């Protein structure tokens, strides 16, 4: 259609309605859901509640676990030994995966997590994965060219820093403990947790520096 042929104003937003055609997998998901409800295996409300719970998860629990590890070396040792048990001490549920593994970044070692086969992710501690984590581009490139990918995220690492990519494609889930930023010695555990971002626990960024945190506060609407 020629642009000049119609005279109504264009709505710059995408239409707020369903696409007409469901994809194959969407149709299959709906069919399985309808069958489960019809056979009495699950109720529609149970499915809704589960989705609501999944959507409401945030990276807050993961951030609190990292902040505790920064201030308590004994806890950090337990987190590195058995992360599932360690986060349970804090009252956090690490989800359905049988094993949670925490890996620690240091000045000479940088860990980053990807799932090349799908989108395995410690959802219970970090919430739903960001879209880019599930993208084919990240999943394929993070293993082949991790330094190039990190650079696109704004993180340039020196050649003498060893980069370790964890491809979490089986029963394990991985959580990165980012380095504690310098200049945070005076901060409380709760303040420290606010520096631990989702991306820093995936390993595509460092934890937020205190001065960046101050910038964010200054920029936030009152």
């Amino acid at each position, binding site marked *: 259609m020629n642009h000049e042929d119609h005279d109504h104003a264009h709505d710059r937003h995408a239409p707020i309605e369903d696409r007409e055609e469901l994809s194959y997998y969407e149709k299959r998901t709906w069919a399985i859901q309808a069958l489960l409800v019809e056979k009495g295996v699950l109720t529609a409300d149970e499915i809704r509640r589960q989705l609501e719970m999944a959507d409401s998860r945030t990276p807050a629990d993961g951030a609190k676990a990292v902040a505790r590890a920064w201030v308590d070396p004994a806890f950090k040792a337990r987190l590195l030994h058995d992360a599932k048990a360690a986060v349970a001490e804090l009252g956090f549920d690490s989800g359905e995966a*049988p*094993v949670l*593994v925490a890996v620690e970044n240091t000045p000479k070692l940088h860990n980053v997590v990807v799932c*090349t*086969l799908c989108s395995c992710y410690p959802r219970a501690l970090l919430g739903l994965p960001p879209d880019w984590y599930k993208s084919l581009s990240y999943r394929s490139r993070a*293993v*082949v060219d*991790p*330094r190039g990918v990190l650079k696109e995220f704004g993180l340039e690492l020196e*050649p003498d820093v*060893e*980069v*370790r*990519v*964890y*491809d*979490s*494609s*089986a*029963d*394990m889930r991985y959580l990165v403990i980012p380095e504690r930023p310098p200049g945070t010695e005076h901060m409380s555990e709760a303040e420290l947790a606010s520096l631990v971002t989702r991306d820093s626990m995936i390993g595509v960024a460092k934890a937020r520096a205190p001065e960046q945190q101050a910038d964010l506060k200054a920029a936030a609407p009152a």
Partner: protein
Amino acid sequence: MAAKFQPGDKVRIRMGSPPGHFRTPAYVQGKTGVVEALHGAFPNPESLAHGGDGLPKQFLYLVRFDQTHVWPQYPANLEDKLLIDIYEHWLEPA
């Protein structure tokens, strides 16, 4: 049932693409790595994915590879590593 491999052992990832579901990415098949850790034994996902019971359980290992070995074009001066979880039936001694 005892685990066939221990941390420090050199292993080669088998080649294969069995029909259905498997969790050993093609890019590490045929490559040689070192067992970094033994995670334990877990139901076999290749059976679970098709309504099976996942038994016998399979030992699951964290295997470490040199990036320069996995990707010929990887910059040779870097010590970077790739770590990936692989089930025992995909491993052979190297």
